């Protein structure tokens, strides 16, 4: 078992139902909370912002209480969060928020502010003394195992194989705590203008500078790659041709 003095925090945000737009517990953050609860019975669940009703869902998913760090409108959540989790051994969060900007940079900024290592795309976390072993998601069915020294920030991948349970009784038992206001640095004026996403974004493509004839030629010239064709030979030779192709392109390792 893990020594009891390990302090674990889970950062949670208010998510957004992709279909209705209704606020809810962010799926990715629920996974982070669930992973944290699997590592330690006592987890500090923190949210920087307003005490939104959606936060009650985290109580149902197992948080004993959710500590709300008040954040003036337009302020950066980084400073209050970093001040609150200083001294913690492990800070878990979702990889990308569902609402807001969802840029997925918060874990990195937090790690820099606290001078901790950060690992993202975590699927499973195991604690080994003063290290954490993390199974990381890679595409195409690959997983990578990395170890990182504690304290650390770990961001959970949305496909983490966890099955958090929604328990209404624990929603009723838990409560939202509001922490004393901390100084938060105001965000610099944002250069971003947001608009409802109605139009499809335009793909970046080269300007068409060719005229008439050249353009028509371009339109009929198919960039047909049509690869090699093996017609002759026995079945065994054909099989070998396939294996040779696989081997020259390093698609098989034997």
């Amino acid at each position: 078992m893990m020594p009891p003095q390990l302090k674990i925090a889970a950062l949670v945000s208010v998510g957004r139902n992709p279909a209705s737009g209704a606020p809810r517990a962010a799926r990715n953050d629920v996974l982070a909370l669930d992973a944290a609860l699997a590592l330690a019975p006592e987890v500090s669940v923190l949210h920087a912002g307003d005490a939104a009703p959606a936060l009650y869902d985290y109580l149902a998913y197992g948080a004993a209480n959710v500590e709300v760090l008040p954040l003036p409108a337009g302020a950066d959540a980084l400073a209050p969060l970093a001040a609150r989790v200083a001294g913690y051994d492990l800070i878990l969060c979702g990889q990308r928020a569902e609402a807001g900007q969802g840029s997925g940079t918060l874990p990195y900024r937090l790690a820099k502010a606290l001078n901790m290592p950060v690992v993202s795309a975590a699927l499973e976390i195991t604690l080994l003394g003063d290290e954490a072993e993390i199974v990381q998601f890679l595409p195409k069915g690959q997983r990578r195992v990395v170890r990182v020294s504690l304290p650390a920030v770990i961001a959970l991948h949305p496909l983490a194989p966890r099955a958090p349970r929604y328990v209404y009784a624990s929603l009723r038992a838990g409560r939202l705590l509001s922490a004393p206001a901390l100084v938060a640095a105001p965000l610099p004026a944002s250069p971003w203008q947001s608009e409802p996403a109605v139009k499809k974004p335009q793909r970046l493509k080269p300007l068409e500078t060719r005229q008439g004839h050249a353009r028509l030629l371009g339109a009929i010239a198919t960039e047909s790659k049509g690869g090699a064709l093996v017609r002759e030979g026995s079945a065994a030779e054909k099989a070998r041709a396939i294996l040779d192709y696989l081997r020259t392109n390093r698609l098989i390792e034997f």
Partner: protein
Amino acid sequence: MNQERKRLDPRRPFVLSPAGLRRIILGATGGFDASLLAAPAHTPAAKPLRLKGDPAGYLLVAAHSQRGMLDAHAHQAIAAAALLASPQQAVAVLVFGGLNEDLRAYGADLVAVLPGADEQGFAPEQELASLCEFVTRYAPAHVFMPDNDIGDGDLGRRLAVHLEAEVATHVVELKPGAVAMYWQGGAALARGPMPLVVLIAPDVVETGLPFSGAGETVAPPAAQAPPGRYQNRGLREIAASALALEEADFIVAAGNGVADIPTLEAVAAAFGAAVGASRVAVDEGKFTRDKQIGATGKTVSASTYLAVGISGAVQHLQGIKACRHVIAINSDASAPITKRADLSVVGDAQEVMTALLAELAQRNWPDTARESV
């Protein structure tokens, strides 16, 4: 009246298309031009260089390679830089991992390769040090990276935070000097000036460029980070049969030309591949619906796609657009799949599959090689 009507000249200038058809040149007048015949229309002319003269500034691209190749997403990041660069700006590319392909077609002017650092490795501190040295060397106006899960999205965020620079992630629209990305989980589109670090979403850039890059090889950064807080304990591969088709890296797919399903499954197992199927094979009840690949089935992105007895109807090809290497076994040499495939073997599916199994068994290859956990 009749005299004034414009008449078409049956001997207008024309060229012969690759298929031997006469293609008339619009807008040209006069008789048949023999010089046009001399230059066959379908030989691709060498594309002009984009960069004019000595570079006066740089745009940077960094990406991880897999098996010595960059994926389509990384190509798009390079093409984005080339399309957005001014004629005096060079595109410098830093590849983490080996590289055996030519990046000129995507507009790379300078290419540096760090062979030891492919997607297998995990050394964020070392990679960040290399990338920072590269950034210092070229002082780029922007750094473009594909926002992916094989390490570039991670490294790009580390770079932005390390340099305390502005960053745009999951960028879906690029214009000179401006980018757009989704907020609120896709409900809002945020536009703003192009920041230093630009992490590009997949499929937002076209890679068919009318120009080419200089493709000069330059020395990779030599920075060495001290041994750090991260330790790579290696890769773990999941047995392909346990994977969802969308995630599989090697797929053996069966079509109407496959009668013997157990043999096909044995071939798939020998390669450690997942099994897919065409719609006809699924409709016949040989496979469950979740194995269907194509427009009404699954869209897959395996590196290797072995299509056995599949004709290659457009609806099927739609599902395998992202597959890198397509190999076809088909008794019909003119089936549409042969145009898509990188290697087509003309022959009976059953015979070739049996020969493949025999060949694999004969070499005594460990057929669990890919499944080792």
